[in-house]
């Protein structure tokens, strides 16, 4: 489940391509300088979309990458984004470098969204924020900061978590370990296991938490459980690092979805947060995000900001302008902001609806199994229960893909954003077949 191997189809596609294009070297060098460089396996998540594109099946369904699709399964550029973009082009602004820390208007907006405008931490200047390259870039800057200033600290990742988390910390040589999270039997949260593992973590460890809409499981702690986790972090001196990629996208409500990080701050904890606007503003390709540190001390926040900038300078110098301008425009314009909230409710609503339809279909086709997890889970992703943990060794996922042309990641995750009403029945049949017969 946690290996880097992509679906078998994707591997075949890549291998075939290699055979066809290999040619004799043009210049005879003493030895090939890069002969020892091995072909990297396709990315387990993005490789799924590649395989999907290569498929010729008329029934193919892409439930791989987490990008929102509308009811016609088309990508969506939010109306507010188009409006904002047109406005910005109309202003004919220059294309100068942003400061290393990014666009001021965006930085202010993103912190307001996270904590709520006027939050004491903001008033007191205790928040360090750098605009960065969406969630990944923000996590990377945070990871580099941990590597440099929390030497020897271990980062605890939920089991399972978004696959790229491991690489982001690994590439900075930050040690990581898992804490128990997903309970395959209940298809829910292994809260007891989670608390045990975090209790056992050494003081000064970092805990990576998903702010809402856990990726890949869709399983979130309850409000009460969040409170217990916060208290534990406080007691054990663990640094919470929130990955907030779905604020506003999970429930459709920006404030509700920010409950967890806000609760932690309220309890006096210092937190690190990586924010992404890929999904909630649909700005995927423009790479808009922020790394935020909410500290208890203003001077420390200032110094931390200077160090975050130093790390960013050696990674990319300064962040890209375009997406940040769009985000700032949307948040700072009352009409656009309200319209945006409506669009988020629409997206979250559609996902909630197809979840309900899928559960209903599965209940009808396979009543002996409890499918309630589908509507209990939240956000774009669902851990279907088609995991290797159910001792199928990936056979079920292979069955989904090879027999039914349903493309999903090998850990059993499906993206509900890629499902519409028209395909619910087809998918339900595929799932039932895979659970029964694979």
């Amino acid at each position, binding site marked *: 489940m946690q290996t880097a191997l992509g679906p078998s189809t994707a591997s075949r596609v890549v291998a075939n391509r290699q055979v066809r294009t290999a040619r004799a070297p*043009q210049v005879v060098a003493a030895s090939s300088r890069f002969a020892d460089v091995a072909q990297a396996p396709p990315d387990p998540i993005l490789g799924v979309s590649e395989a999907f594109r290569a498929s010729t099946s008329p029934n193919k369904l892409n439930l791989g990458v987490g990008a929102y699709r509308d009811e016609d399964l088309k990508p969506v550029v939010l109306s507010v984004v188009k409006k904002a973009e047109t406005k910005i082009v109309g202003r004919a602004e220059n294309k100068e470098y942003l400061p290393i820390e990014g666009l001021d208007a965006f930085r202010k907006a993103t912190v307001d969204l996270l904590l709520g405008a006027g939050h004491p931490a903001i008033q007191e200047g205790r928040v360090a924020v750098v605009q960065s390259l969406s969630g990944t870039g923000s996590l990377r800057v945070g990871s580099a900061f941990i590597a440099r200033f929390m030497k020897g600290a271990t980062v605890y990742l939920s089991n399972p978590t978004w696959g790229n988390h491991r690489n982001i910390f690994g590439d900075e040589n930050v040690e990581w370990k898992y804490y128990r999270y997903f309970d395959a039997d209940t298809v829910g949260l292994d809260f007891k296991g989670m608390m045990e593992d975090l209790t056992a973590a050494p*003081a000064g460890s970092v805990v990576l938490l998903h702010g809402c809409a856990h990726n890949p499981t869709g399983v979130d702690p309850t409000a009460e459980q969040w409170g217990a986790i916060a208290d534990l972090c406080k007691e054990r001196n663990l640094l919470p690092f929130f990955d907030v990629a779905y604020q506003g996208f999970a429930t459709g409500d920006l404030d509700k979805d920010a409950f967890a990080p806000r609760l932690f701050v309220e309890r006096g904890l210092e937190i690190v947060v990586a924010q992404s606007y890929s999904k909630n503003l649909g700005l995927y*390709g423009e790479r808009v995000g922020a790394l935020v540190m909410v500290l208890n001390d203003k001077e420390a926040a200032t110094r931390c900001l200077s160090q975050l900038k130093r790390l960013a*300078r050696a990674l990319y110098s*300064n962040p890209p302008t375009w997406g940040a301008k769009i985000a700032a425009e949307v948040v700072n314009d009352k009409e656009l902001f309200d319209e945006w909230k409506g669009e988020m409710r629409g997206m979250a609503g559609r996902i909630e609806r197809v979840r309900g339809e899928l559960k209903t279909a599965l209940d009808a086709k396979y009543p002996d199994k409890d499918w309630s997890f589908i509507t209990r889970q939240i956000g774009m992703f669902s851990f279907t229960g088609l995991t290797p943990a159910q001792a199928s060794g990936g056979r079920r996922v292979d069955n989904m893909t090879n027999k039914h042309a349903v493309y999903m990641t090998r850990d059993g995750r499906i993206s509900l954003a890629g499902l519409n009403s028209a395909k619910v029945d087809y998918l339900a049949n595929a799932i039932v077949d895979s659970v029964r017969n694979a």
Partner: protein
Amino acid sequence: MLSLTRKLAEVAVSPASAATLFAGVPEAPKDPILGITEKFLADSSPMKMNLGVGAYRDDNGQPVVLDCVREAERRIAGKAFMEYLPIGGLRDFISESVQLAYGEGHPVIADKQVAAVQALSGTGACRVFAEFQKRYMPGTKVYIPAPTWSNHFNIWRDAGVEFAKYRYYQPASRGLDFEGLLEDVAAAPRGSVFLLHACAHNPTGVDPTPAQWRAISAAMKERGHFPYFDMAYQGFASGDCDRDAASIRTFLADGHRLALGQSYAKNMGLYGQRVGCLSIVADSARDAAAVESQLRAVARPMYSSPPLHGALLVTKVLQDKELKAQWYKETGSQLTWNHVTDQIGMFAYSGMSGEMVDALAAQHHIYMTRDGRISMAGVNSRNVDRLAQAIHAVTSGRL
């Protein structure tokens, strides 16, 4: 000093305490280049001049957006596409960039020997390469010219690659220390990585002549060194894209395997869009494919995929005959200023000391990097007299 982790284990944090986990984090020094802009912005003098960062200004001191870029932007505004790019970036953009750099139809392109990914401008290209070097050219140092863009050191250091310097600028002649350079090339361990500025050397503006480039290429070939070309000014240095890339093509003709980091920050004025390309010329299509896959593996945990907007703009300009012609015209015409006769490009290396630079800032509200590098793009007909007088004042010991 106790490590932060051990400190945390020892300190009992009571709920009411406002202790911070980050008390031990020191203030970082300001970036030597970008920090100048910060100081400039903080200065309230109406006479202030920013000669720090290398960003082009017109004669009114205003930033410039090329007309071809504005037009390209109009065409893509309100676009219906915001999806993630592939990890390696926009394929059309990469194809155009590689052709621009190596020449359309160059054998290495036709034979698929070029591994290439879209990068976060020049910085991003350098950083992805530095990480690649760390993993796949272990034990090699990066040889950096003295002097160079200050961020080169930060990039390779953060990637965990050791650096060494090679002689480049000769203060006495205000030109290239050609003999010193060749000596250092010969002395470096076989197979070292050498960072070369393809054209318009930053900060000195001093470039090797074509004959000197040929000699450097031969010397590096002899030692099996691996060149990394940093090209941030193609088209902007001489006004001719092919001429500005001649050094790279000389090396290719000599059969070098090499890497190239291209930036569109200056030559298309796309600074803040962070558009660039990293390419590596390998021995075979197999190697190129493998290398490219590993470049993607570096990029994925760094930023997942590069930003879309700037790449779309560059592609639009380069793929459209009219826009491309317009671009050539616009970059060519920016070079009517010829303030420094022999040096080339955006910067002039004044030879002023750090103390003189400080005096310029404190007494005259003129800001530049402490190595005495002047961004000529910040000089125009309105301020050149004041600049000249100020420089005269601080270098003559008069206040």
